[in-house]
Structures are given as C-alpha cells and as structure tokens.
C-alpha cells in the first residue's frame, strides 16, 4: 500500500504488453555478460579444437627447440626448456581445466543440491542428521586430504577433482537447504499440496525451479575454485607430472624464469582469463536473475532528483491571490503536486498528477483511494521521504508558513522533528529490533533535552498513549510487544515534539479490529489535546467515518472529489466516489438466500 504501489501499477500495465526475455538473452544483453560469454566460449572452443590447432604433440620434446622464443616457425608461442611446444601444451591444459571445472562443480552441485533439497523439504530429524554430516565435511581441510589420499586416488586429476567436489559440496548443501526452507513455506507450495501433487512433483516443479538460479551462480564460483585447486596441486607436483596442464606448465616455467620469463605468461594468462570470465559470468547471471532495474535517464541526473523544485513562478498561478489570502488559515497547502518515476525505457511515469490539497489547523483530513492511486506517494512527498528516483514538483507546498520547496536536507530534517510527524502502516518494521523501545524513543527526544529529562518524557508519553506498564515497555525490545503496543509506541514518538501536522499512513491496517478501535480512540484524543492537523491516508471507509472531518478521494494520481465527510458518504458527486461508496459492504443486508442443497438450520 505504501511503497509497493509503484510496483503494483506496473503489474497492471504489464498485462497489455507481455515481454518475455530469457535469462540467457538478458545476460548477453549486458556488455559484461556478453564479454565473459565470448571469452569463455572461445577458450572452450580452443580446447575442443586442440587436435586441429596444435602443431606438435604436447609432450614431444624437440632438442632443437629448447627455449625457442615466441614466433619461431612451428612454435607459435615458443617452446619450453624441454623443447615442447607451448601452444600445444596450452591447448591441452585448457581441456584439463575445463574437465576439472566440470567434475569439481558437478560433483559438488549434484551432492549438495540433492541432499539440500531432501534436508530442507523433509526437515525434522533427517535435516538434523544431514546438517551435522555436512558440517563435519566442512571441517575437513580439503586440499591436505586430497594430497594425503593421493595413493588411493592414484593421482589422476579427475579423481582428485571428484574428491574436491565432495569436499566443497557443503557450500551448495547449505545454500539449497536454506532456500528450500524459504520456498517450502510459500503459499503456492501449500496450494500444490492441497491440489494433490506428489512430493517429487512439488520438488521438481515448484521448489527446484526457484532455487536453480543461486545454484548455477555458486556452481560458477566452484568451477573457478576447482580450476585453481587443480592447477595449484599440479604446480606443487601432486598428480602425474606427465600430462600438460596449467599447473605443471607454470611449475616448469617457474624453474626457467631467469632464462625465458615469457614462458610463465602463457599459462597464467589463460588461467586468469578463464577464471575471470567464469566469475564475471556468474555475476552477470545473478544480475539477470535480479531482474531489470530502473535507471534514471542521464539528462535528468543534473537535478538532484528527490529534491523539490518550483515548476512555475508563484505569480503565474491564476489563483495566487486567493491562495496567499487563505494560506494564513491553512496549516498545509499543496498546489499542483506532481510525482513521477523513471520507466525502463527512459520515459517517466507520473503517479501523482497535479493534486492540490490543504489542511487547516486541528483538522483531520482523510485521503482515501485504492492501491496505486498515489495517496501514499502524496503523503510521502509532503514528508520528503520519497526514494531518490522520484521526481517531485509543486507550485506551492507550504507548511505552517514555511515552504517545503527546495529546502536543504537540514531544515527539512528539523521540520520533520518538530512540525511534522509520521505514523507508519507496519509498526513492527518501523522499530529497530536491536534496540530497546526506550532507547529508540529517547534518541528522538535527545535533540532538545538532557538524557534524564528525555527518559522521563518518554515514560510519560508511554503512559499517555495507554501503555499500562511504561517502565517495562521502556526496557522491552520490539519483538517482546504486540503490534498494537508497537503502534502506540510509534504514536508516542510521533506526538512527542507536539507536531502541528501528523501524517498517518494506514495506521491501523495491520492491526486487529479491537486494537484498531483503541488506536483510533487514542488518535482522536491526542488530536483534541494537541490541536494538530492530521492527514490520514487509508483505504478503509470505516476508519474515515470514525475519525475524519473532511475526505479527499484519490484515483490514478488525481483527487477526484473532496468534501465534508457526511457529504462524501451521503451525496458523492463523482462517479468514482459513488462506485467506491457502493462497494462498501452494506451492514444492513446479510446473506439470506438458503444453501443450495436445502439444508436449513444446523444447530
């Protein structure tokens, strides 16, 4: 209802123009992704085409070619100290690396995801056992064990990589298990169960589909690890030294570094290119999965986007004379407010389209509308709390005689602390879970008083908002109190500076009706006591009827109708308001038609 309203409106809009782009298409549409795919594919192709491209056998020593410099006929990259063709050896090494990567990450993914799926989905005791086993596996020093086990593995790099895959599988296991636990509680998995789907089908169709992205990403990183470990072990001399691979190549070149330093370059270069391409590809895939992000068009960047700007000079406004006359009587006056967000294609989408509203001192004004109508956007733009991409403009935005337009952050912050206050929709997510209620309240008060005074004031406030044991609540953490209590705490914090204007964004939507009634009572009492103006953003007409003096009805970013609360309810003039009012479920009519099958009373 608050910030997602932008997302919701695009949902509806997207229904007309379905655009489906696969993850791979999205990867290669970014320069980073395209670049890494090209590099990786070319390296793999070089390996595959080895028999065609190589000039000599990678292990054939030619005495006449010892330490041949690059460019020697027949030895494109030169030859090493044993007279073996470096180019052929590079091609052979590519194949070894690719196979190492496939085996290492393949084994890790297979073991980790199978057991992760089982562990996360079935849970309970099996989860405990599997989690313990994989934790144990994690504690083994993989590299040392691979070395120690060489007599058993026979020293071929394939078996060493399979072993390595087993040792790094806990990484995948934990990833998959935790993702599955998250997905398992999604409602669509429950719905699938109720639909009578078997576990296997639910796992393969609903669960695996969601977790595949992260698995692929970490598989890319594990592939680089496998390549590195394989080369590292070979460099140290483990495994058969006969085959050409990047490890033995760097090892040989290292011994020869004073005579032919260039020999070290070739294996290192290919090794680095391969690993970098894999890591960057993983990153590109992650970005592609995260979905497209809205980028503000360049030319708009020169204006600090979230800052307010005056669109027209005040004098140009036809009603400016009346405005300034009535402005003195108005606590808040807003004229021609516009809020827009960048679209993906660089155009802007206007979510508030020139709304004008005013609030008199001590007046409660309800701003009603459905999701995506721009009501929260209007409230947030008055608070100056819209995200950076938002572009806000207005002819007039005055609060208690001060203009909120083009204010620097400091003054706006001071206004927010003293003149204007805010009550959010979700009380729980607006309290920091790691600090006590007391410390959060005192923090807000400390600006204007000593610590001791602040504590006393906070306790008095908590008592004022109807909390029965203020001392205890003061010391509690947010998770120890109920949602209704949390909302009371937030109200206490909001009214502490005795604001002139209180903006409440769906303050009771997340609460039970009995709690809602109490919170509305509290708001009414506090408003009477402090004489503040209130802008109440809500979709609930019952709340409006309970609290508001005046109502503004909003739709698609425009205020379609405004007026006294009784007028709006009894004689709405705008068709949209009429539709809204008629959608309110009438209390007088209860369902009277009998059940179809003709069963009457059942009690």
């Amino acid at each position, binding site marked *: 209802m608050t910030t997602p309203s932008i997302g919701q409106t695009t949902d509806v809009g997207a229904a007309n123009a379905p655009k489906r782009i696969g993850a791979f298409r999205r990867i290669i549409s970014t320069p980073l992704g395209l670049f890494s795919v090209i590099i990786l594919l070319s390296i793999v192709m070089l390996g595959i085409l080895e028999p065609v491209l190589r000039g000599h056998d990678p292990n054939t020593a030619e005495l006449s070619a010892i330490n041949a410099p690059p460019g020697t006929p027949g030895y494109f990259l030169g030859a090493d100290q044993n007279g073996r063709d470096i180019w052929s050896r590079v091609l052979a090494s590519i194949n070894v690396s690719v196979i190492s990567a496939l085996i290492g990450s393949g084994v890790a993914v297979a073991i980790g995801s199978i057991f992760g799926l089982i562990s996360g989905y079935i849970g309970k005791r099996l989860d405990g056992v599997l989690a313990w086993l994989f934790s144990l596996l994690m504690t083994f020093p993989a590299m040392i064990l691979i070395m120690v086990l060489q007599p058993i593995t026979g020293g071929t790099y394939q078996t060493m990589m399979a072993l390595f895959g087993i040792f790094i599988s806990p990484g995948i296991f934990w990833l998959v298990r935790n993702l599955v636990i998250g997905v398992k509680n999604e409602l669509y998995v429950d719905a699938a169960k*109720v*639909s009578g789907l078997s576990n296997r089908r639910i796992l393969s169709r609903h669960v695996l589909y969601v977790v595949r992205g992260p698995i692929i990403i970490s598989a890319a990183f594990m592939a680089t690890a496998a390549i590195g470990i394989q080369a590292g072990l070979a460099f140290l001399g483990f495994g058969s030294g006969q085959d050409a691979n990047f490890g033995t190549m760097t090892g040989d070149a290292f011994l020869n570094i004073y005579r032919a330093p260039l020999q070290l370059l070739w294996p290192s270069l290919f090794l680095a290119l391969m690993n970098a391409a894999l890591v960057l590809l993983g990153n590109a895939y992650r970005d592609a999965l995260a979905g497209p992000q809205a980028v503000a068009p360049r030319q708009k960047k020169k204006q600090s986007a979230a800052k307010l700007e005056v669109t027209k000079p005040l004098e140009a406004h036809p009603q400016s004379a009346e405005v300034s006359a009535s402005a003195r009587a108005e606590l808040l006056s807003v004229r021609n407010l516009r809020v827009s967000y960048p679209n993906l294609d660089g155009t802007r989408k206007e979510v508030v389209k020139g709304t004008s509203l005013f609030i008199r001192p001590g007046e409660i004004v309800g701003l009603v509308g459905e999701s995506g109508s721009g009501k929260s956007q209007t409230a947030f733009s008055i608070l100056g709390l819209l995200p950076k991409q938002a572009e806000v403009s207005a002819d007039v935005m005055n609060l208690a005689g001060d203009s909120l337009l083009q204010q620097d952050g400091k003054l706006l912050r001071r206004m927010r602390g003293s003149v204007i206050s805010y009550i959010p929709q979700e009380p729980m997510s607006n309290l920091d879970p790691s600090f006590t209620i007391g410390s959060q309240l005192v923090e807000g008060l400390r600006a204007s008083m000593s610590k001791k005074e602040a504590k006393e004031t906070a306790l008095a406030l908590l008592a004022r908002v109807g909390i029965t044991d203020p001392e205890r609540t003061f010391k509690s953490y947010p998770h120890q109190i109920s949602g209704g209590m949390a909302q009371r705490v937030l109200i206490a914090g909001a009214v502490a500076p005795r604001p002139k204007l209180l903006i409440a964004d769906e303050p009771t939507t997340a609460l039970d009706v009995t709690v809602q009634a109490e919170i509305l009572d509290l708001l009414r009492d506090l408003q009477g006591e402090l004489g503040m103006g209130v802008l109440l953003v809500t979709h609930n007409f019952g709340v409006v009827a309970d609290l508001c003096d005046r109502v503004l009805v909003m739709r698609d970013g425009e205020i379609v109708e405004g007026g006294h*609360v009784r007028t709006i309810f009894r004689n709405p003039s705008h068709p949209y308001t009429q539709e809204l009012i008629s959608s309110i479920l009438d209390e007088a009519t209860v369902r009277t038609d009998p059940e179809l099958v003709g069963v009457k009373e*059942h009690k």
Partner: protein
Amino acid sequence: MNPLLQVSKLRLSYPGRGFRSAAPEVLRGVSLDIAPGETVGLVGESGSGKTTLGRAVLGLAAPTSGSITFDGNDITAASQRERRKLARDIQVVFQDPYTSLNPALQIADILSEPLIAQGQKPADARRSVTALLDKVGLPADSAARYPREFSGGQRQRIAIARALALQPRLIVCDEPVSALDLTTQARILDLLIDLQRETGVAYLFITHDLSVVRHISHRIAVMFRGELVETGPTAQVTEEPESNYTRRLVLASPTADPDRQRQRREARRMLSHSASTT
C-alpha cells in the same frame, strides 16, 4: 441430512521451540460442521487459531486430538495417498494472491496442474483451462501469461479457478479478499456467491472482517483464543451477539457512516467501561 464436514473437539498444538519446551495450544477443542452448499464464516482476530483450523481441514497441520470427518469418512490423520484423493473434494483459496501462485509458471500450467495430478491427460487438462478462466471472468488469452502480469484481483480469480478445477465440494477460503481493494473485494465476493449457486460448493470462509463475513455467510462461527465462543445464523450473531467477545468485536468494527459510527463508538466505550468496572 449429514453434514459435509464435521470437526469435533479438535485440539492442535505446535511443537515448542527448543528441547522439551511447552507446546502452545492453538486450537482448544473446536467443534464445527458445514452442510453441503453452505458458507460458514469463521471470524476471529490474529492469533485466534482460525487459519490453523483451516489448515487442519486441508491436512497442512496435524491435530493433536479430536477428529475431522468429511462426508462420513474420518480424515483426521489421512495418509498422503488419501489426501491426494481428497484433493478432488477439498480445495483452498489463500489470502495473498501474490505468493499463492508460483511466479515461474504460466497460468495454464497453474490451472492444469491439479487436473494432471489427478491423472488427467495433459492435453485434456489444458483444454479445460479455458472453461475455468471463463468461469471466473478472465479472458482466454490469460492462459499463456505469468502471474506477475495480473493485478491482485485478477490473481485471486486465478486462485479461485485453480480451486474450482477439480470441482470440489468444499473450499477453504483463508482471507481471500483481505489483500484486495474495496471495489475488487466486492466483485470477488459476488463471484464466490455466484459460483456457489452454480456448483453447490460449500465454503469455510475465514476472515477477520465482519462486514465481509456478513455478506457471504449463512452461518458465522466466532473464534477467540483457540475456542469457538459463538456459532449461529449470520443475522443473529452480528445483530444480537450472545457472547461478550462477539459484542466487542461487532462494536469495534467501524461502520462507514459518521453518525452511526459515533453511536457505535459510544456503545463500545460503555461496554469496555462496564467490563472494566465489573
């Protein structure tokens, strides 16, 4: 006539956190029955156990004692295989239309899945998708789209279509309109009522909103801290509630009329005042 669903003395507790910690009891002996083609509204506040009761009926939560009987058969501890058969008779519509549809599947897949799971040929299942979409008032070309391309109300229509796919006799509706806008809410409720008249399906309609439940229910059951405090015909429960809690609940829900709301507010204050003095 036998009731379609009969819940008797149902108790349910979730295992506590940690070793040998006390298990909080969510349902404390709930008895309720639903006749074929009837809507029973289950009203209560958060934490009252109303959703848990629905989940127990659906087999998503295991009761500790008591019994659930569907059409004469005890389904309290139905095996997975029996549950799969029961899917034909008992279905669900969840509250949140954004998470109850798998974002990665096309609408056609979502709707045909229950049919395929019951052994229908994929081609036949696909064919019935259009009819289902038509039933809930969505255009046929919705089939090839993804859930994210629909608004909240449209998604809820898809969820209802999925529930209807197997022509069940009971649908558990867990707050199906709470996440929707006012105008959409009214339309979805009308759709549910129309579908009931057409198909004779019974609803267990779980909600916290009295005005919604008044609109759709034949009978209302009020739940408070794991117990049913009152059950009766809709008009009786909402107009002359017997239990004190129901009275509080009725008076706390604001009505969309400034003057009547004022009266209600004062009545509520009187009630809470008399409650605190006695």
